[in-house]
């Protein structure tokens, strides 16, 4: 009997360390095991709007799954974990440690921003915690052989050249001024754009306007008066801004005041109606083009159900990367469902990562199937334009 007690204690300890997921898996059917799906992105800070556009999609996908409305009666319950990284690297690294430590977390949607993915992935991949980013588009993120890395949007290697071709060949602009915001997202995208534009025969001038303090960076917003003067002096036919809406809004306002009359074109970091409210005066944002690997919702029943559910939760309409976030969460849930066919105990972080490499899921935005490096198959880039204070999708580039 003296031996029995340590064995019992040891068994308890082993059970505890085995993680809540597998422990729950041994419970009777009446108490379903619980797994958590996390979302990580900017929920505060200058680019918080982009995160807010995504988080409610994940929450809605989870609530639909728990209610049995999207995947039938699942043999497990899902909970939701929110992490705010402000779109920055250092908070993302801390969030990653917390998510890895939370054994109930079986997968995550996000990080949303490329810099955050870069900072979080060493920790996440070491723990084999699957991450599906709905919006991180930096090309080199897929070069690290991180087995747990997936994204449901085309990368900047596709977006930058596609934008350049559109600008030069369709808009007919040949004197271009390419600005990047000195972020890990903006710089490579600007380079990819500039390289393709030059190859297309355009004259390209490049410049870097670092992110400003009010938008999560360290530069002073006062820089834009001088920046706008510099651009106006170069008199380009089109300014391509590679960065986020918060700073682009300030630049557009400064260009407007400086009397610049050319076209302004930006990328998915600015593809949000918040660009309009971040521009002073708001009317100066009219005529600005923004491209995105994301699509606008259509009119199918599934699209309408999602739009209504999102609106109910968020109290605003789905926006940029909302549908992609829903698709990312749904893909994750579908994988859990597939694994559960062989028993809920089969749902482990390792199996989720393995399963995602072969999954094919028909989402709202596209059929989701990942390449071996975690990139999404397919390359569709859409172009939008702000007209009369509204963001309107023009179609594919």
């Amino acid at each position, binding site marked *: 009997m003296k031996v029995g007690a340590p064995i019992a204690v040891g068994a308890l300890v082993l059970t505890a360390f085995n993680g809540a997921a597998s422990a729950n898996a041994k419970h009777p059917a009446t108490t379903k095991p619980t797994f958590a799906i996390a979302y990580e992105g900017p929920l505060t800070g200058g680019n918080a709007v982009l995160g807010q556009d995504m988080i409610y999609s994940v929450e809605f996908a989870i609530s639909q799954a728990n209610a049995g409305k999207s995947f039938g009666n699942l043999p497990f319950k899902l909970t939701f974990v929110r992490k705010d990284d402000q779109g920055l690297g250092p908070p993302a690294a801390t969030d990653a440690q917390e998510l890895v430590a939370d054994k109930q977390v079986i997968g995550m949607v996000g990080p949303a921003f490329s810099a955050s993915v870069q900072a979080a992935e060493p920790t996440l991949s070491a723990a084999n915690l699957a991450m599906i980013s709905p919006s991180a588009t930096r090309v080199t993120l897929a070069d690290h052989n991180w087995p747990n890395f997936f994204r449901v949007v085309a990368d900047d290697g596709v977006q930058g050249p596609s934008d350049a071709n559109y600008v030069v060949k369709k808009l007919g602009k040949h004197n271009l001024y390419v600005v990047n915001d000195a972020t890990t997202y903006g710089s490579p995208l600007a380079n990819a754009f500039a390289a393709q534009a030059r190859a297309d025969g355009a004259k390209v001038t490049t410049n870097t306007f670092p992110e*400003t303090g*009010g938008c999560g960076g360290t530069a*002073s*917003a006062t820089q834009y008066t*001088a*920046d706008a003067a*510099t651009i106006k*002096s170069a008199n380009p036919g089109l300014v391509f801004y590679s960065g986020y809406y918060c700073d682009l809004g300030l630049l557009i306002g400064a260009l407007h*005041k400086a009397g610049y009359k050319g076209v302004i074109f930006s990328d998915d970091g600015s593809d949000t109606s918040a660009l309009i409210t*971040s521009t002073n005066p708001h009317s100066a944002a009219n005529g600005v083009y923004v491209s995105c690997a994301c699509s606008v919702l259509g009119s199918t029943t599934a699209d309408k159900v999602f739009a209504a559910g999102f609106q109910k939760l968020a109290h605003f309409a789905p926006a940029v990367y909302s549908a992609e976030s829903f698709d990312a969460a749904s893909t994750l849930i579908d994988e859990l469902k597939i694994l559960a066919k062989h028993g809920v105990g089969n749902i482990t972080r390792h199996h989720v990562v393995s399963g995602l490499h072969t999954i094919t899921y028909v989402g709202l935005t596209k059929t989701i199937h990942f390449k071996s490096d975690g990139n999404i198959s397919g390359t569709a880039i859409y172009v939008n334009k702000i007209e009369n204070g509204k963001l309107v999708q023009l179609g594919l580039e």
Partner: protein
Amino acid sequence: MQCPSFLANNNLWVSLIVGGIANGFLYALIALGYTLVYGVLRLINFAHSEVFMAGGFGGLFAMRAILGTSSPAGFWAIWFMIVGIVAGAAAGGATAFVLERVAYRPLRKRNAPRLTYLISAIGASFFLFNLGGKEFGRITAFIPTPAVVQGNSFTLCGVGVESVWILTMVTALVLLIVLDTVVNRTKLGKGIRAVAQDAETASLMGVHIDRTIALTFVLGGLMGGAAGCLFGVQFGVIYTMGFVPGLKAFTAAVLGGIGNIRGAMIGGLMLGLVENIPLRWMSAEWQDVVAFGVLVALLLFRPTGLLGERLGREA
């Protein structure tokens, strides 16, 4: 206005110089808060950047209440803007007053070491900007303005000089003259200078130390708050708006000679120009590198700043 021949064909030069001067006046206004408090207490009030932020929100809410979505035309409408700046200054002054009472006075009463003030200042700064984000939202908002403040006032050598730049320069000049007069020619100013020179003796001579220090904070807060409103008109109001301009203004204060009111103004103007002029030749990402490089080099030759004097010794 006749344009000098060397500028006639170089619009960029004119834009950079005029924009730099406008930014410089903003820095100067913020720098006054640092320099006043340092002059009296030998304390760097790192929470002054949030006093600046409070001014931005003060101006925003006042102008929203007055103008809503309208934008009245006519020069008379400048009064709306003046009300907004006064509201911003009041918000800044009130925040600085509370800051002194809550974060600094208790430490002063307990003769806390200087390092404790620094930590208290940083703590207050974090508290205030997070409070601002929580209460007022985390998205940039622009201060509504009457039409007279929008667009350009006039053209200089082919470059439009923005009305808001003129407003900033005029406001800054008026406030700087008022402050200089208050400090040098009034009883309050005499008290401030006395406390700065020797607080104990000033107290024996009948100067109310606590009230004088509180009013010094308020004066600095009024300037910072007005600057917050003027900044908000141009670049928007957000809870994190204070950090970078605060840092720049602190630099301007040191450059001019910390503790020296006229030095803060000269330092601010110089920083604004040194930031902008290199952009004539180089990419914007070098702006801070060059500006701060020049400032460091300058301080090597004049370690106490351009005007190199303080209001007096610490209280």
